[in-house]
């Protein structure tokens, strides 16, 4: 793995080399780097695929570099919180009424979007984010969809207010690279386009039936 190569360099050649990694099994999302210009999880990228080399490893594109291969996560973390990625109820039902039930079909609606590991490869692949860092970005929008499509959640309207702003879904021009590089097959590009369609339909409804839902 490319990560093993980096560990070799750190152990044997240059102890000052700095990079993030943890689980070595593609679930912690901390070892994302550019490998020969492609955003990759270095723990899931075979060195053999790049033989005989050389392999060029760079910090994730589109993020400020703190040191060596370590980028600043602050911007992404801030955006993640903005889309409220947690289940919101208008009113919680009392404990005595038991848990919120969900069928396998209802779970399948959002499961794909829940596979996101916040590795930020999609941000490194997104030219829109590179050109305009205010764009809220693929993973944050996919995670918003994960909660919107969850039948236990009731805050789709709140999230729509945040995401239909200029820096939200309409910043996306559907390059589609986020979906291609996603190691978990989340399809953020699909999530964003579904959001756009929903937003447009909401607008049409508000024009045709201005008093509905008021």
């Amino acid at each position, binding site marked *: 793995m490319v990560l093993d190569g980096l560990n070799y360099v750190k152990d044997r050649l240059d102890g000052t080399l700095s990079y993030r990694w943890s689980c070595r099994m593609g679930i912690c999302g901390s070892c994302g780097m550019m490998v020969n*210009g492609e955003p990759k999880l270095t723990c899931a990228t075979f060195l053999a695929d790049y033989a005989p080399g050389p392999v060029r490893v760079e910090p994730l*594109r*589109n993020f*400020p*570099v*703190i040191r060596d291969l370590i980028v*600043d996560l*602050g*911007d992404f973390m*801030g955006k993640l919180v903005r889309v409220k990625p947690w289940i919101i109820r208008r009113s919680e039902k009392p404990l005595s009424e038991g848990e919120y039930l969900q069928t396998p*079909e209802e779970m399948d609606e959002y499961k794909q979007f829940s596979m996101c590991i916040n590795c930020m490869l999609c941000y490194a692949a997104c*030219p829109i984010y*590179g*050109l305009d*860092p205010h764009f809220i970005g693929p993973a944050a929008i996919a995670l918003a969809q994960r909660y919107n499509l969850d039948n236990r959640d009731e805050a789709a309207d709140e999230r729509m207010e945040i995401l239909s702003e200029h820096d939200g879904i309409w910043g996306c*021009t*559907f*390059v*589609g*690279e986020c*979906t*291609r590089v996603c190691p978990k097959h989340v*399809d953020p*590009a*699909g999530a964003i*386009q*579904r959001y*756009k*369609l929903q937003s447009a339909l909401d607008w049409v409804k508000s024009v045709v039936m201005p008093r509905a839902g008021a």
Partner: protein
Amino acid sequence: MNHVSYTPYHPRWHRTRVSTYWWLWRRSYFLFILRELSSLSVAWVVVYVLALVVRVSQGEAAYRAFLDWSSRPSVLALNVLSLAFLVLHAVTWFNLAPQAMVVHFRHRRVPGALIAASNYAGLAAVTAIILALLFVQW
């Protein structure tokens, strides 16, 4: 540029600049820029068709003059190029449609290929109607 707050003793982090030619070095980025550019062709075709309608309303001589102008090599080349861009625009649009549209039928999700296919079927139907209007003697 970023929402990062620096303290007086905090180092300025390194930020690589995005090259003006970022879209040249990757096929998918290049295709994306071509697709964005194709909107110019769409605009041109709209203007062209509107001009044609205006000319038709001005009588036969004006219409003939418009046809002569249209058969100039430069205009012809522009229109052929526009057609190529329009096809790119339509094909990429149809192929992306399944990602944006999630349709349920009897509690089952309709497969993406079917959604794309129905888009192409719609295109074929509209094309057939237009061709019928043009070539069938009513």
